[in-house]
């Protein structure tokens, strides 16, 4: 187990390194200059100011030097300062991480719980009305864009009914709407997978055996069938978590929540290189961590899987 972990962690390093190089190159190869954005109309009026500011920010150095400086600082826990806000990026990123994590975990919990429940109901009542209703809901969930759903939820529950606030973070009542908006798509995807996975497991001999032993349908479904049906579901849930982080970028903007997504988007629009690099690095770390967790959970769900 320890050896496996060590291997996996070492294996993640090139991935994270690769992401940081790619993001760095993309940001610098796309035309445009953060200093010009910063100076706005003054950039042309005062070329001396432009150069002075570039010099101060270290943007005149060759790319490998800039990248080297970024890596060296990052290894020391310093991601530099935002060009636009002039605040330390470690601080910005850490401040944004917590609300994003809360939102992502809440949405994932809702998606998994709802998806499994819906999927099981559909599988158990295969071909019947319940199945059709569940799968229709699933279709709606997959097809509805998050930003649209978000605006709709705000209109109904914030403006018309006044049940929940539309913006901000902190407190359960500010979490409900963005969680729903974010959870619906992965919930729908998971429900469909749980359904088909359950139906496949149903055909396995051990399910027939369990029934033949006289076990109640409840035990058959939840104890025998579901646990085995969950292996592909966990894989997908891991992938969906990644998509969910991407979805959070949109949802955070719609609900004006502080978060990594909004930080990254504002950073990209203003060519605030260090901010985008910081967020990308953190997101890469999160991805690598989640993939590892997914792999480890296989051993728990399927006793045949062992890491040695």
């Amino acid at each position, binding site marked *: 187990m320890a050896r496996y972990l060590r291997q996996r962690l070492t294996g993640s390093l090139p991935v994270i390194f690769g992401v940081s190089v790619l993001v760095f190159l993309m940001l610098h190869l*796309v*035309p*445009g*200059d*953060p200093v*010009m*954005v*910063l*100076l*706005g*109309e*003054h*950039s*042309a*009026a*005062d070329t001396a*100011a432009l150069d*002075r*500011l570039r010099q*101060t920010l270290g943007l005149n150095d060759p790319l490998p030097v800039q990248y080297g400086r970024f890596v060296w600082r990052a290894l020391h826990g310093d991601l530099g300062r935002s060009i*636009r*806000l*002039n*605040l330390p990026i470690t601080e*910005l990123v850490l*401040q*944004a991480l917590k609300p994003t994590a809360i939102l992502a975990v809440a949405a994932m919990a809702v998606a998994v719980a709802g998806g499994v429940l819906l999927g099981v109901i559909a599988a158990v009542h295969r071909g019947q009305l319940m199945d059709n209703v569940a799968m229709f809901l699933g279709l709606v969930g997959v097809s509805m864009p998050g930003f649209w759903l978000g*605006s709709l939820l*705000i*209109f109904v529950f*914030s*403006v018309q009914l*006044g049940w929940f*606030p*539309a*913006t*901000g*973070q902190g407190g359960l009542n500010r979490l409900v709407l963005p969680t729903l908006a974010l959870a619906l798509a992965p919930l729908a995807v998971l429900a469909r997978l749980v359904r088909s996975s359950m139906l496949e497991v149903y055909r396995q001999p051990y399910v027939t055996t369990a029934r033949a032993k006289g076990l109640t349908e409840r035990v058959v479904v939840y104890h025998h069938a579901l646990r085995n049906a969950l292996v592909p579901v966990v894989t997908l849930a891991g992938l969906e978590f990644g998509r969910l982080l991407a979805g959070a970028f949109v949802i955070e*903007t*719609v*609900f*004006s*929540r*502080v978060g990594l997504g*909004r*930080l990254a988007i*504002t950073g990209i*629009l*203003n*060519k605030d290189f260090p901010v985008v690099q910081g967020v990308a690095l953190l997101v890469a770390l999160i991805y690598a961590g989640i993939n590892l967790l997914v792999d480890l959970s296989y051993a728990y769900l399927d006793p045949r899987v062992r890491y040695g």
Partner: protein
Amino acid sequence: MSGRVRLAAVTLLALALVLPSGSPTLAQAPRTGGTLVYGIRQEPSTTDPHGSAAAVAQRVVAAMYDSLVFMTPRGQFLPWLAESWQVTPDAKVYTFKLRRDVKFHDGTPFNAAAVKFSLDRIIDPATKSTSAIAALGPYDHTDVVDDFTARVHFKDSYAPFLYAASTPYLGIVSPTAVKKWGVDFIKHPVGSGPFKFDSMVPADNITMVRNPEYHWPPKGFFTNTGPAYLDKIVVKTIPETSTRIATLENGETNAIEPVPEKNVAALARDKRYRVLKAPYPGAPRLVFLNVKKFPTDDLAVRRAVLYAFNQEQMVRTLLFSVHTPAKTPLTPASVGYDKSLASMYPYDPEKAKSLLEEAGWRAGADGIRVKGGRRLVLDEFIIGNIGLDEPAQFLQGQLRDVGMQVEIKSMARAAWYEGINKGDHNLVPLFYIYADPDLLRGLYHTGNIPFNWSHVSDAGLDRDLEEAYKTPALSKRIPIYKRVQAKVMDLALALPLYNEFNLVGIRTEVKGMVFDPTAYPLFYDVWIEKK
């Protein structure tokens, strides 16, 4: 020159709209207490007036800092931190007599040393100043004559300085706080304004609370003379338009900016809300025509563009008649506006066609005109998705009618700056908020190429703009600027589109909001009626 220094004209219209319509208003005594939650599209990027401030930050900065003088929307200067001032006839030396009873939020007394410290800080490269350093112009140094007299010296004549000194960009900071916090001053900003910094969550909000000691507002503009009425102001960033409106409706905010044009009528009809309109001073929304690039290097083409465009129709169809058609290089809310120029280029497509014919542009097979084998194609550079697409498409349609083709090149902001600074465009839109007509120098003086996006280089224009820059009396500068504007129109350097208003939506319990000369809200007089 001070770029986005937004100054502006508050406006009688805005004041009129604040009053409940219909019955005459009974004067109510302002109530102390309450919180203003101000939802805004773009994040105020800083709390430091001298830092790399985007214009939007001025709403926050103006509440926390005081400036030396105050400019009314009509271009009149009032005493503020400076009780009086003198300018030498060559506009090179400004002497300010300062108030003696002002304290910064941290208790530091305000004096001439603080003025010198603030101005010197702006030109220090470590401050990374952009707008403030531009506003300081040819600054040389400041002498502390005595504790309450500061003398500011410029290397060259700089008549617009009084205006610059009235803007939040040249707000005075507490020297003690700057020395204590250094680069982290942005997290611990200290001024002497009616509101004190409380807290900030980047990308989310900046919160300020009342300064209980405040009693030194500009003389003769506000009704209030003591501490502000509001307990607290939360400036909250809400980028998504529909969400911003939803928060006004459900009471999470009690004021939002901006209200999209299409929502103005619905909000204004509802008794719970009011839409305040403050006209921006400076250049209207306009499109520059690059005189150095084919085919806009041809005067006939440029004039044809001005005749072929129907501003009235654009305002009606695209802007819900919220803004007004623009026909001049400065908006009507600007000091130095020349109304007589408005009739120079009436909408007249036939005139546009005949101008093009006379200049040898003949319609080709597809209707696009050709001269010497080259097609009449104009490249318009715009930033995508910030509201410039529709006006560009509208222009495209109108010019197509007279045989000109507009190619819209939509790009990200940074790439856009790079392209237009190189002069690759024929057409480029601009909106420039500035309350002093000196902005014309930034737009049309040879020395400002490439920010002079029409790339014009005209000896007469240069001479006039320099002369006005060196003339201290505004009354003597204005006739010069009228000459400049006439020349700009004669050479058809820019196509004015529309005069824009800052649109602020408020709940009716919010009272007393007025605007600074750049049409930005001022919170000092704001109070909240108890319902």
